[in-house]
């Protein structure tokens, strides 16, 4: 009964979706979206020169007087 039209919709949608996904994937490869440089830069945007990598930014429970900058632990 209504199975055929339903199948048709699924198939068309699947083909369109899959081709879009493939196109996006090849675009990403071609423009080097997955390059190590891209990825590392992306991961570092939450830091700046003051709150830089290696500096913890929240140590409220630490007793005052302990050195709190450049904390190394663990």
């Amino acid at each position, binding site marked *: 009964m209504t199975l055929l039209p339903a199948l048709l919709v699924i198939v068309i949608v699947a083909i369109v979706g899959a081709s879009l996904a493939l196109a996006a994937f090849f675009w990403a490869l071609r423009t080097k979206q997955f390059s190590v440089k891209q990825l590392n830069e992306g991961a570092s945007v939450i830091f700046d020169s003051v709150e830089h*990598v290696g500096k913890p930014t*929240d140590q409220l429970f630490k007793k005052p007087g302990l050195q709190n900058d450049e904390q190394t632990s663990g």
Partner: protein
Amino acid sequence: MSRPPAERQVSRTIAADQRLSDELTRIGIDDSAASPTVLFLASGVAWLLIGSLMGLIASVKLDLPDWLGGAGPITFGRLRPVHLNAVTYGWISLAGSGMIVWLMGRLCRTHIRWTALLFLSAILWNIGLFLGSALVILGYSGGMEWLEFPLPAAAVIALAFILFALSMFRTFAARQVEHVYVSLWYILASLTWFPLLYVIANAGLYQGVGEAAMNWWYGHNAITVWFTPIGLAGAYYFIPKVIGRPIYSYYLGLLGFWSFALFYNWNGLHHLVGGPLPTWAISVSIVASLMMFVPVLAVAVNHHMTALGHLSMIRYSPTLRFVVFGAMSYTATSFQGSLEATRSVQEVAHFTHYTVGHAHLGMYAFVTMVLFGAVYYIMPRIAKWEWPYPNLIKVHFWLSAAGIAIYFLSLTLGGWLQGLAMNTPSIPFIDTVNLTKPYLWGRAVGGTLMTIGHCVFAYHFLLVIHRAGPKRFAPVWFRKAEEVAAP
């Protein structure tokens, strides 16, 4: 710790004016987000109190059904939906939006645009919540789970969300960084998804079983497109930021995001396993639920590897403590959920309190705990006032953690036994009710601890807003712009 010496060298030699300018930029951005963020967070905290109280009353009503039993507006069947709406569309959504506003400024490195829309949004949102809750209490529920608010209230909330999203997209368009951080992917996706989802679901397009399919597509997708992204955006930002270490693998982040988007939008019908729907459709949702192992593992490995070797920082950082608890709960909830979706588990667990236990593991142990962590990080930076009583934070943490543990364990065990008993036809139905009673009491105890924790949290929150309590000088992680600029 194992940072290459070269990197350390570089950070040391950056010119002092660079540091000054970076710090002033960051403070300026935080300040631009301050008022709308506080408005959203404070409303969220208010709804947390209202919602917890409703949940607690509803919970005790299952233990003492005749308690407050004389009036319609406070019957279980009306308080329960108000609880759900208050904690999800109230607390999580509003506090989540506050977090998003603040993160948006930080991640786009620019001040927040169109803040007037944000104020309007927060006000409308609160009006919508009040209207919706009042209407449900007065007996005008829409009748579908997660969609109880009748149209007038839903329309106000939809409008509020759209205004919120507009301001956020405008800020995103003005971003001063090339790279869009992982947290921002989740936020941008949810800003796109949620208004669509909410409007479609409230449009009344379906009837009968089709409507049931829509209802649970909506119910689970609200988690997919809004509540989970809030939690993950927070975890992806705060874990690396507090520790001071970039996320372990950005690549895993990408994989996790896209597999999440692909699979999680198909999960809804696992809420109707065994129901009168086409089998294939339910099977699709079950398969998609199992596929969720991919994004969940990607996120779990990523967060775990980022924190690895730095977990002792949990001792020092309130934020990290809550957020790591939340991130671990995300993994736990998701694993549980994937397994729970299978037919053999659903056969037992589907109609029982087990599901409620699972819901709180996700909405509380994961999202709510991450949000607590976020509030503990954000508030001092925008109020320029450190939390005056660190011990209150510890009390809050342990009340919440112990509360949810008791809550979850009681209902998981009680619900499972309930399901087994229900599937044993020789056991009279009323015995499946009697059997759950001690576990329902257990839930009430857990819920009481959580609620007390929320009161502590709200009190402390008020102190910070009013910059009250003892002033703390060290360690201080934030300063006013004047203090930085002064020689």
